[in-house]
């Protein structure tokens, strides 16, 4: 029987859309681009998020431009074109972070519609080459735009690439893609990159910096490497000398997966550590202040538990529960699994290198290996629970932590484009007012800061501040910081605070819910004052002044009628 071959159609724009939607969150996409810089032997990598006019860290879809600059080997014009081809560069060196040659395109297009590359190799600056989805849709074929740099651009890119080689990746056209707030992206990058690239940062070394620019250029914050298992501080497990502070090493072995077909693959390094319960790090726990800081620094939470799977030294899976082997009760257990590309087929590592699938036989074996560690981790939790007491801490810190990633958008404004000048003026005025009060209500609420590592979290912006700097009849006053968004000052001289709020433990659900209600009212006021430009500013201010007088007066009366309510 004769057979013929026939061409099939490729719908270029639709294919672009498909590869942009394979499940990237912005921080994952940015790290995929950072992978290319690491593979290019960069020693310095700088990530910038440029906010759109009128947008803050708390707004969704607030990024106008993502930029990643590295000082790696760089690319010629031909090499940039090759990098833009789909399934690019199939031949990777041993222990490469790349796999399918799709990362730049799929990650980039998940962030915005245009990916620009300007690179420098052997001192020679390239053209700007742009992978533009709109252009591809217009031509219905895979094309890139090549533009010569203007003299001004040559100057600015030469400044960005001062060495003999390096690459600038820029992604714009982000407004049509629905993204989480940039504060969430930045927080996840700051929290995760030190863990993801720990071995590169410490061993090569690579310096990775990140910043968000709202109008003016800001300084980069350097990512600190972090071994999330804290193995260098870990002690050997001994139930009789458990100290409630140290990590305990429960497993440190090489696993040789038996494939049953006689084929040998390199062993997989497995480590497991049990950490103390997070609540022991709260003020008021039986530990000393120094010990509390150490415990808090581990950030023992469910998202930070489970198996951390590394491929060629780069984290590809954060806190995997290994198909249910690790349960929610074992959230103080962290496991590390070190793979190389030689394990890709056995463990079915996917295109985003974020997911893998372990077959049932290997999972059963893994479960047996981890059983003892799981049992010990549960015992550690039980011991910690017995040691716990009611915590008390610094006021407002718990709410600031919990609300750090809650969007503060005005629902009426979310679909609109760039705000009118009147709104920007009002927001500038709000920012100036906030600057004054910020200095007098400064609160350092470092959370997670430890003597061992600050990579997971340094300090949080105080979203709720307890102060006497509030009009005496009002319970609260809201402000809007230009970068961090809304914060609220609560009046410590108001009787409602003195009688009720002050008696509620700072991180109790009751206190958090009261703070959430007050904060929500603050967000409502700030957004209304800032955005409702159809109504004169003085009129809006008059309305809110009356509103606060009424609220403050009612709460004062309620308090006087219900003295000792909390002791009843």
């Amino acid at each position, binding site marked *: 029987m004769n057979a013929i071959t026939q061409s099939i159609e490729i719908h270029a724009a639709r294919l672009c859309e498909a590869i942009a939607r394979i499940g990237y969150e912005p921080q994952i996409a940015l790290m995929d681009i950072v992978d290319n810089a690491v593979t290019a032997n960069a020693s310095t990598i700088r990530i910038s998020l440029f906010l759109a006019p009128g947008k803050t860290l708390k707004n969704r879809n607030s990024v106008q431009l993502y930029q990643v600059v590295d000082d790696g080997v760089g690319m010629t014009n031909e090499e940039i074109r090759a990098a833009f081809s789909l399934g690019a560069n199939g031949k990777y060196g041993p222990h490469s972070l790349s796999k399918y040659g799709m990362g730049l395109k799929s990650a980039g297009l998940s962030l915005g519609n245009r990916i620009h590359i300007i690179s420098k190799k052997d001192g020679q600056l390239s053209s700007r080459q742009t992978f533009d989805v709109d252009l591809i849709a217009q031509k219905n074929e895979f094309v890139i735009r090549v533009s010569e740099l203007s003299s001004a651009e040559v100057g600015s890119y030469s400044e960005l690439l001062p060495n003999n080689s390096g690459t600038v990746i820029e992604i714009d056209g982000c407004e049509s893609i629905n993204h989480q707030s940039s504060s969430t992206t930045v927080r996840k990058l700051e929290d995760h990159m030190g863990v993801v690239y720990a071995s590169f940062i410490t061993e090569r070394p690579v310096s990775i910096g990140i910043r968000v620019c709202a109008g003016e250029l800001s300084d980069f914050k350097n990512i600190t490497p972090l071994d999330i298992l804290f193995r260098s501080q870990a002690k050997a*497990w*001994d*139930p*009789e000398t458990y100290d409630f502070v140290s990590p305990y090493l429960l497993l440190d*072995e*090489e*696993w*040789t997966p*038996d494939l*049953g077909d006689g084929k040998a693959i390199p*062993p997989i390094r*497995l480590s497991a550590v049990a950490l103390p319960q997070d609540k022991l790090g709260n003020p008021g726990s039986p530990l000393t202040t120094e010990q509390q800081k150490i415990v808090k620094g581990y950030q023992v939470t469910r998202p930070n538990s489970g198996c951390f799977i590394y491929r060629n030294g780069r984290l590809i899976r954060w806190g995997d529960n290994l198909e249910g082997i690790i349960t929610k009760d074992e959230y103080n257990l962290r496991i590390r699994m070190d793979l190389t590309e030689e394990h890709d087929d056995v463990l079915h590592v996917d295109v985003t290198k974020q997911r893998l699938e372990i077959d049932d036989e290997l999972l059963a*074996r*893994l479960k*047996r*290996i981890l*059983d*003892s560690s799981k*049992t*010990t981790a549960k*015992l550690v939790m039980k011991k910690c629970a017995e040691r716990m007491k009611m915590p008390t801490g610094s006021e407002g810190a718990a709410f600031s932590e919990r609300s750090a990633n809650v969007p503060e958008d005005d629902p009426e404004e979310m679909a609109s484009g760039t705000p009118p000048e009147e709104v920007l003026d009002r927001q500038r005025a709000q920012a100036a007012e906030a600057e004054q009060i910020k200095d007098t209500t400064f609160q350092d609420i470092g959370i997670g800061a430890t003597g061992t590592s600050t990579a997971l979290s340094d300090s949080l912006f105080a979203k709720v501040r307890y102060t006497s700097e509030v009009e005496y009849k009002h319970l609260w006053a809201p402000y809007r910081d230009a970068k961090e968004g809304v914060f609220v000052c609560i009046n410590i001289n108001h009787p409602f605070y003195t009688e009720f709020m002050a008696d509620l433990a700072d991180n109790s659900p009751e206190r958090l819910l009261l703070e959430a209600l007050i904060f929500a009212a603050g967000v409502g006021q700030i957004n209304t004052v800032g955005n409702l430009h159809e109504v004169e500013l003085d009129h809006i201010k008059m309305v809110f002044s009356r509103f606060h007088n009424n609220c403050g007066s009612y709460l004062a009366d309620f308090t006087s009628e219900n003295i000792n309510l909390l002791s009843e």
Partner: protein
Amino acid sequence: MTTLAGTIWGQLRTSHLYAVFKGPYVYFGETGHVPPVRWKGHLTSDTDFIGKLKRVDPAAAFDDTPIFFVGIHIDVADAEPETKRKIARRAIEAELHQRFSLDPLPVAPATNLLSSAPSAPVRHTFNFDKVYVANAVYAMIAAEYQQWLVRNN
């Protein structure tokens, strides 16, 4: 004409780890007696080696593949207070199962485990390093088994 079928020696009430092999199957266990006291059960009971094999692979349970027993005396377990000896043996048995799960190649071709690992007694400490002892036991079991395979092939 005649072939040595194996030897066993030791005091009656002493701590042992042991393994049972048949073709691709292996079973690890512990006992507070000289092992033959316990091994009888593995040939007769429905819940021990042959009983489990009947459920998993009935043909293998009745075929003429030879069965191999090996026992290792654990004197460090006998050195523990009497009330802790069983727990000590359990701790080593759990570790022994883990050694096998981490790397079954030393006892190849026996890659299918019939025994269940006991729950690790993590609340207890002993006067010995259970991982070190389990590694030594696993190495001895593997060496005896591989020598026997060579002698019989």
